[in-house]
């Protein structure tokens, strides 16, 4: 969380889509910390996607500003191209992101626009696919892949560009447990290489066990941000915006204060099990 203030910072962001009355973002100030796994949580319509579109300069703030590494975003063509090499976005719907007809072709699509040599392109694409467990699917037509495979292909396409910061919009939506695990594994590999990963989600259990840092949006404003322990420390705050608590956090808070004083809240089922074993004999 070091250098947070110099990484991607949104200040007093305001944005209203044309012909809608309510603003999508309203005085939103929030910082994406470098090197973390950050989860942006909130309901549909809370402003998560709009925020991402601002991060890439696709939407321009109507008030406030976005800055990247200490400098305010510029919206010239050249500046945007360079920003978008450093910040990658994975769409919620992979159908929108996958343009070419095979995974290998699609992953190399972005690399080709960088003007790399064919051999390098080939190698980097293949690597990206392999890291996401798609090594054997490079030549399969995309319409024959499962949703989980498509999502990973879309991620591979963004990953191959080696951005510093990857934003994912609802990456696990519609995935079954197995595909979800594979996708999260892929994210872990990317994060392990030093990439900052940000995920928008409304799956509280996932956010709780995956993220190092949480940003809670509600009605276009930043409602809270901090570590999962901090954010979920007060159950009522989250419930007041209708988000509910992750099961584990909920159970933890229901335990008597004196029994758990000084302990760290369990972040996954394994830790919870260990904890219960201490109590239940």
């Amino acid at each position: 969380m070091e250098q947070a203030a110099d990484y991607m910072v949104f200040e007093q962001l305001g944005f209203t889509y044309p012909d809608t009355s309510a603003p999508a973002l309203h005085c939103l100030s929030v910082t994406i910390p470098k090197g973390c796994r950050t989860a942006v949580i909130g309901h549909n319509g809370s402003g998560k996607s709009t925020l991402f579109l601002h991060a890439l300069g696709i939407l321009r703030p109507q008030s406030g500003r976005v800055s990247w590494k200490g400098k305010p975003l510029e919206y010239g063509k050249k500046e945007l191209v360079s920003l978008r090499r450093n910040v990658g976005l994975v769409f919620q719907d992979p159908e929108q992101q996958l343009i070419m007809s095979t995974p290998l072709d699609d992953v190399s699509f972005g690399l080709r626009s960088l003007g790399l040599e064919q051999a390098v392109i080939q190698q980097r694409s293949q690597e990206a696919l392999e890291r996401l467990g798609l090594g054997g699917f490079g030549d399969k037509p995309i319409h024959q892949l499962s949703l989980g495979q498509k999502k990973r292909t879309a991620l591979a396409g963004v990953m191959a560009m080696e951005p510093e910061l990857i934003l994912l919009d609802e990456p696990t939506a519609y995935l079954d447990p197995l595909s979800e695990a594979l996708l999260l594994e892929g994210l872990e590999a990317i994060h392990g290489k030093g990439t900052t990963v940000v995920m928008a989600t409304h799956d509280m259990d996932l956010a709780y066990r995956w993220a190092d840092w949480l940003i809670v949006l509600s009605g276009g404003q930043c409602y809270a941000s901090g570590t999962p322990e901090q954010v979920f420390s007060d159950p009522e705050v989250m419930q007041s915006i209708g988000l509910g608590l992750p099961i584990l956090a909920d159970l933890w808070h229901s335990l008597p204060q004196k029994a758990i004083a000084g302990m760290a809240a369990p972040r996954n089922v394994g830790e919870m099990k260990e904890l219960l074993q201490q109590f239940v004999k």
Partner: protein
Amino acid sequence: MIRRIDAISYANGFRQLSPLWKSLFAAVMFILSYLLHPFLQLTICLWIAVWCLLYARIPVRAYVMLLGMALLFYVLSLPALLLEIGHPAAGQAWITFPLPLTSLTVYITAGGVLRGGLLLARLAACLSCLLFVIFTTPFTELLLVLRRLRVPQLVLELMLIMYRFLFLLSDSAHGMLLARRLRGGSRGFRATIREAGSMGGALLGQTMRRYRGLSQGLAARGFTGEIPLPPYSGGPVPLRYRVEGCSGIAVLLLAQLWMSW
């Protein structure tokens, strides 16, 4: 833009008015736009702008933008309408440019400018009527009006399905264009054609999947061949608008009579 226009048509001051009445009013205005004197055509244009912007509270920006975009066709055709090529008779041409290497001259005549001006007056009036329909009446209700006009059921059903899937497909297509922009996109004619070909393929695949999905979905709901349309139901038209509409038309007609006398 489609979404904006569509959203306005569902949320404007005239939303509750009977769609049949609105269409009838627009139809009369269309006819008047063709029949009346240019001066009165401009009056129609202004009058309808008042209805749309003041009464129906259509956002001015959207109205002006759509008007401007539609008028581009006129602007584009203007050279063909104004410029004459050949040998102007003496005193006919306003401005002349001799065409190099030939004996021909490009020139503009007073008659041509007058024709362009008259055309603009009629265009503006007709376009205003069209905008009135577009902005104040949601497509769903126009469909019911078309049914009252005895447009065949098959055509209505096709329109219904088109309208339903228009927005979904448009979101997809926009997403794809955006994704392409974010990831750089390629240069050169060959690469562009190849890319466009695959995007077309991807979109086509999606459209075909939607078709299969829809045919299952409708089968599950007991679709047996015909999509029954809801019955026509029109809201009342406040007396004020009826009076203003009728008296406006009467004034226009009287003015025309007086002018042609």
